[in-house]
């Protein structure tokens, strides 16, 4: 028993992996001990997800050793890794959209009865139990299609947790979650740890790393840097190891002159998503739209931009009505939307980085009706450089970029359009600290230059750090509007969890 406790559940040493000319991983190393939660941190593109995929059996490593409970293994497929007791939550949710939530959780290992008949009732009740444990309310019979990223992530977690695995690997599981769900996840993770399983946790949020993990491994440029006990190291130490330098202010908010109202939303209603949403954004102002996951914030953004329709209400830009359901005219009016799902909405994953970066300014690049690859590349270069997108080349397929770098390309694409109003849904999801402060700095600067910014964020520090004004949504309604000086974690969270009336009453009480 004690012997077992000292053999690592999973150990990789000197692992390398190349994709053609791109070296994704040069010297990957990690050791997961049973009964422990191990954090893996590193900049975007450091090779974390690649390491995960090697563990998962999706990629074959080029060199290095990989042992599972002391025995060398060589997975040729994800099925083999799964059979060996490794459960993986990938960075991007991978659900079957047409299948029900229940089927998604149990695919390939459904409980069966006589002659292989699936026991559907049993499966359903187990899923209900799982959802209860995770503290979420998702209909087990609904198809995965149309679930928000957060809900999808939760199902991924349910899937992995219900697998009775020796090692649970989680690649940024919390990127799409807000505080409440994160806390639930952590409780479960701790429970699994106490059962003696080995867990690996990747995140760009250091507060999470420190509150959950026992050990932390830092990677940089595809190579292992160091492993420390979380108890004996500090955030700034890790950031230094990770980035190779000190990161200045994470929320470099600059004061800007607040000007005219440029975006006005009046009584926007869409059945089942949100109702009676009214607010305005002025030039030079950063307005945050806060709330719990599933509050309907993204839906509001999509409706404003015209990707979705709405039943009632008006959207005005610079005093003029915006036709509904027409993204093109929204763009022409100076609107830009950085959507929440970069994989499906933000980028054409199979197109090149250059094409993607130039996608929002196609009409601007057109000369005499013609557009050339040269013009696209030129404009792409500028923004790729500004945001330090890490890619092998401009014609690399966007899907091969690391998660955070994909996010940067989406930002590049929309900043290139030089919008008057920027709606930005989870601007720094999956972005590393270094770049995060860079994105924040740039947002501040753009506001200062007169841009109106509507920022949807589930990260409270980001909301509090960046916003001039905070709008809080709950279940499709705006429950509070809080000026910067009054915004605090308590006020925002209270509004996010109570109805407008209650919030008002609470305010009067004070």
């Amino acid at each position, binding site marked *: 028993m004690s012997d077992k406790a000292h053999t690592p559940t999973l150990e990789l040493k000197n692992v390398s992996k190349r994709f053609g000319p791109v070296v994704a991983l040069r010297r990957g190393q990690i050791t997961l001990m049973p009964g422990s939660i191990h954090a893996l941190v590193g900049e975007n593109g450091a090779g974390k997800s690649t390491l995960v995929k090697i563990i998962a059996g999706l990629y074959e490593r080029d060199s290095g050793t990989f042992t599972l409970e002391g025995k060398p293994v060589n997975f040729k497929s*994800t099925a083999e890794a*799964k059979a060996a007791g490794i459960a993986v939550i990938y960075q991007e949710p991978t*659900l*079957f*959209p047409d*299948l029900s939530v229940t089927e998604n959780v149990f695919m*390939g290992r459904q409980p069966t009865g006589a002659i292989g008949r699936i026991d559907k009732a049993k499966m359903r009740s187990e899923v209900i139990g799982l959802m209860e444990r995770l503290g979420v309310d998702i209909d087990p019979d609904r198809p995965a299609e149309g679930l928000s990223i957060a809900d999808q992530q939760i199902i991924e977690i349910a899937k992995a947790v219900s697998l009775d695995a020796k090692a649970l690997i989680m690649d940024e599981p919390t990127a799409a979650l807000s505080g409440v769900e994160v806390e639930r996840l952590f409780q479960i993770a701790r429970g699994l740890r106490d059962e003696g399983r080995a867990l690996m946790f990747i995140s760009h949020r250091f507060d999470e790393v420190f509150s959950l993990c026992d050990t932390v491994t830092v990677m940089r440029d595809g190579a292992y840097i160091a492993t420390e006990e979380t108890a004996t190291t500090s955030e700034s130490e890790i950031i230094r190891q990770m980035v190779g330098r000190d990161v200045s202010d994470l929320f470099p908010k600059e004061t800007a002159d607040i000007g005219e109202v440029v975006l006005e939303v009046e009584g926007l209603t869409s*059945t089942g998503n949100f109702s009676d949403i009214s607010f305005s954004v002025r030039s030079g102002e950063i307005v945050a739209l806060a709330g719990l996951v599933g509050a309907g914030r993204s839906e509001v953004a999509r409706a404003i931009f015209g990707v979705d329709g709405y039943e009632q209400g008006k959207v005005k830009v610079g005093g003029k009505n915006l036709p509904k359901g027409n993204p093109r005219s929204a763009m022409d009016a100076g609107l830009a939307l950085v959507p929440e799902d970069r994989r499906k909405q933000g980028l054409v994953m199979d197109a090149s980085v250059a094409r993607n970066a130039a996608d929002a300014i196609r009409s601007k690049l057109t000369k005499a009706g013609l557009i050339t690859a040269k013009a696209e590349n030129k404009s792409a270069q500028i923004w790729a450089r500004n945001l330090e997108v890490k890619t092998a080349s401009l014609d690399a397929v966007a899907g091969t970029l690391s998660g955070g770098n994909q996010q940067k390309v989406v930002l590049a694409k929309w900043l290139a359009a030089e919008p008057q109003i920027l709606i930005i849904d989870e601007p720094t999801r999956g972005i590393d600290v270094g770049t995060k402060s860079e994105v924040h700095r740039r947002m501040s600067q753009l506001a200062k230059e007169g841009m109106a910014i509507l920022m949807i964020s589930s990260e409270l520090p980001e909301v509090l750090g960046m916003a001039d004004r905070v709008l809080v949504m709950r*279940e499709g309604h705006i429950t509070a509007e809080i000026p910067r000086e009054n915004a605090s974690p308590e006020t925002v969270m209270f509004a996010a969890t109570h109805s407008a009336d209650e919030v008002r009453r609470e305010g009067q009480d004070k």
Partner: protein
Amino acid sequence: MSTVTATKPASAAMRWFSSVVRSREFAIVLAFLLLVLATTLKNPRFIFSPDGWRDLLVTPSMLLVVAIGQAVVIISRNVDLSVGSVMGLTAYCIGSIFIAVPEMPVILGFVIGIAFGTLLGCVNGALVAFGRVPGMVITLGTLYVFRGINVMWTGSNRINASELPKGLLNLGTESILTIPILTIIAVAILLIVAWYMANTRGGREYYAVGSDPVAAELYGLPSVKRVFLSFVISGAMAGLAGVIFAARYGTIDSQVGSGFELQAVGAAVIGGVAIVGGSGTVIGAAFGAILLTTISRSLPVLGIPDFWQQAVVGALIVGAIVLDRILALRQSQRLVAQRFAEEKA
């Protein structure tokens, strides 16, 4: 406690009933019944005569089995355009065997036909699954190749009914309790495949693979095997259809089943199998096949002039898929409204 157990079965039955009524398949069945009703009112012999009854049941059996296989392939996000050619080649193969060995038991003929179709399906499946290439291109290729082989083999030959053993031909008309044997075979296979697709791990994996192939791979599902098997099933079904053709029509030339691929895809799509994979049922596809076959049979009875019949068939196909879509939209709107109302309450 007792009240709970007492009401539970009733509500389960109710739930089942309402889910059946709401299902996509139900709309097709309804359309089919209306069609049969209208035609029968016009001419009662459409079902109330021995031949009419038999034809009503037996004629769809060929498209029905092909549609079963096609549905499995489409559900796993592929399409099999070679079914017509597989069917033709199998029909000729089985015809030739029966001519060479007339005393061969008919059941063996079915086995050989299915085996031969399976073999051709394996060719498709191996190319698509192991080559990891789109099924549409491969099967468009094998559509040409199999048909070419068929023409080359058959030459100007043609198998006539008179050359085939009576035992086989009788199958085309014989029935048990007025249900034609070919129909019984087709329905039995339909039920087996439908059960397999709905209730087994393997069956559900076709849906998963079709719903999102990338996710299926990340998840560790045996996608290659499933894609391969879907084509094998489709081949086997097309092979069976070839034998049914031989039994029912008796005359086999080199063009048997040409153009059948699009009918099979059409049947599956009308029956609610999403062309992008991941959803639909083989039962739906089967009803699509029955509807499609019966439409073209009832038009002459309904007095539609011969020249215009194909146009009416086309209009009805379009109408059926539009209607299905509208019903689906209504349904989802109602669900959203319901959810919203519940949330408010």
